[in-house]
């Protein structure tokens, strides 16, 4: 029942320095869904994103977006990486960064036009950072920084979104705002994948879950996949600790 508009991952395997990080991942993801990528630390969640996006070398396997290779649809696929590894002292304002989302639409000799500026303004308004647009990016809170990156992704106007841990180090208001925006995008038919680690909010946030721990544990609709049994397989050794800290209930 593979549909041509799906995101299809075939036999993806990745290793760093001979250590296997991902083994033989197969996925077939219909569009218009909000996916949570769940798994313990070191499960290879970020690696899966990078491999699917063609940012790292893979040992084997391939990913296709609506039947196309990633290289042929860069404009349509957008990535929001984790906030660390970014030089926040960089001389750029919020608007400069959000406007970056328009760059893929511009040829070398084309200038930014009114449409680009309107898209940039719209994206900033949507995530609620319009009042910060002249601010240097270092003078923002964690939540605001995350909103800037989301706004850039929105300004790009892509069909598929990859967000790596967008809720780490952000305030509750931002988290709610982001999930609300993601749900709106989903209802507009966009496909959204989110690496997420807070097991408590999985059922509330995601339509579908991809459970991962170096290999694919299970994936599919949240009620079917996000079960005690699957979670305990994915988290095996970590489960006891989680019980003790009360992060999940027995």
């Amino acid at each position, binding site marked *: 029942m593979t549909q041509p508009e799906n995101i299809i991952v075939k036999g993806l395997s990745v290793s760093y320095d001979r250590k296997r990080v991902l083994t033989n991942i197969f996925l077939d993801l219909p569009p218009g869904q909000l996916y949570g990528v769940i798994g313990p630390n070191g499960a290879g969640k970020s690696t899966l994103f990078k491999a699917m*996006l063609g*940012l790292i070398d893979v040992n084997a396997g391939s990913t296709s977006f609506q039947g196309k290779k990633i*290289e042929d649809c*860069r*404009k349509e*696929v*957008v*990535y929001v*990486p984790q906030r660390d590894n*970014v*030089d926040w002292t*960089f*001389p*750029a*304002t919020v608007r*400069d*960064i959000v406007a*970056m989302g328009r*760059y*893929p639409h*511009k040829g*070398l*000799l084309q200038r930014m036009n009114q449409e680009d500026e309107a898209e940039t303004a719209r994206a900033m308004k949507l995530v609620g950072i319009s009042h910060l647009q002249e601010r*240097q990016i270092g003078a923002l809170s964690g939540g605001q920084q995350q909103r800037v990156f989301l706004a850039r992704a929105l300004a*790009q106007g892509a069909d598929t979104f990859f967000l790596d841990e967008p809720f780490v180090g952000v305030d*509750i*208001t931002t988290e709610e705002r982001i999930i609300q925006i993601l749900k709106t995008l989903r209802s507009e038919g966009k496909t959204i994948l989110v690496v997420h680690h807070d097991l408590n909010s999985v059922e509330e946030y995601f339509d579908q879950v991809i459970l991962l721990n170096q290999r694919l544990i299970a994936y599919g609709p949240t009620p079917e996949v996000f079960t005690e049994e699957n979670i305990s397989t994915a988290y095996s050794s970590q489960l006891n600790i989680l019980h003790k800290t009360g992060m999940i209930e027995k």
Partner: protein
Amino acid sequence: MDTILQVFQQEWALRALIASTMVGLTCGVLGCFIVLRNMALIGDALSHAILPGVVFAFMIVGYSVVGFFTGSVIAGLLAAVIITWIQQRVKTKNDAAIGIVFTAMFSIGVMGISWISRNEGVHLDLKDFLFGNVLGVANQDLILSGLVTVFVLYSIVLLYRPLFVTTFQPIIAQTMGFKVERMHYFLMLLLSFAVVAALQTVGVILVVAMLITPAATALLLAERLPWVLGIAGLIGLLSAVLGLYLAIEFETTPGPAMAVVATLFYLMAVFFSPKKGLLGQTIRKRRLQQRIQAEDFLKQSLKLEQREQLNKSNLQENLGFSRRVFGRIQSLLRRKGLLDNDGYHLTTEGRKEANRLVRAHRLWETYLVDQMGLSAENIHEEAERYEHLLTEDLLDEVEAELGYPTIDPHGSPIPRKAVRPERSLLSLAKNDHGRIALKQIDEHITAQLWQLGVLPDTEFVMRQLDSDFVEIEQEDRHIRISKSLAGKVSVASREQEATT
């Protein structure tokens, strides 16, 4: 002492001036990307690594500006490729890889020079190579520098967007379809060009000063990349020209003079940059500290007053300020009209300010407990710090988010925001008609009115004004409202009534 104009009327000096201007500008602008990409060491490496290129070019085609240029660029790019290759394929640390490559290439170049001097009987001056010889610039050199300047600046303008993204976040640049590696090597090419052009002016050792120092200075002064590029170019240009002038005037070597001038600009920015300068930082820190002390003073005074223990010695003891600080804050607050002349009682304004602080403190504590899940025991210090930093807008937001709490986690009341309605219920006289405004000063008031059964935007008659309550009649019901609440209830203005 000759004026600048007189000095530069001589032809050799004018040529030197033109060369310095171009080099200062090019290196300044290009240097911004080098600094932002943490490639300062690479700039140094490339400049040293081009020596063998010059030497081999001389062996092959003899003394030729174009030959030197070609040889240098090839050597520079070769160094960049080898360095990148080692960094990616061999497990040698990045800076170690750079060090190995450039010292090796530089050494080969130096050996080549000795070999040429011995066997060909030609004397190549290593000193010119090391420190530049801007006063000996020939027309051919000028043309070459001019071409390099135009090419580098034009490339940066044209490739501004890819350069910006690949520098800020290479991984995002990649997902946007930019060729990150290609940009890296193109930048290396531009760098090689700039280094070769700068060789005549400042020499290998000091090229890096022209690349790094103006860029680092500009980064202290501006917060947007286009401005940084412009300011760095200007500082580079000024350093080169002023350095050249000073060198001619005081008969010293131009290259080092330029580097020294650039460093002076840098030091000035370090101390006096409005936002990032040390001076501004110290002043801001001092001001913040003083504000915090003043605010603590107000709060303590209010607290003691409420406990009826307010006197000077209690206040001083509770605050723990030295006598000098105490006196300074006292006079500061009195000047602002927040403190009575006795030096410890609050004025009405002062009380308002103190209440605002208590509100900030308790709201923040409530926020930390309710929303962040911290325990009530260890939030006081945090709130003590943040009460000084929270803006009024943020507090309103926090209050709304918390659902307008009345007590904090320790059970103390949270003071209301001191806002007065434009026209309150108390402004009406007996038997006046009026309407309760739709929008009250805060949702708290709306809620209280709702509880009392007072309907907004519905006509009422003022029936009684007592010393501690007012009574209104609305839709045949008599409702009593406490005076403190009545003072905060907004009544629709007459114009609004007229329109309804």
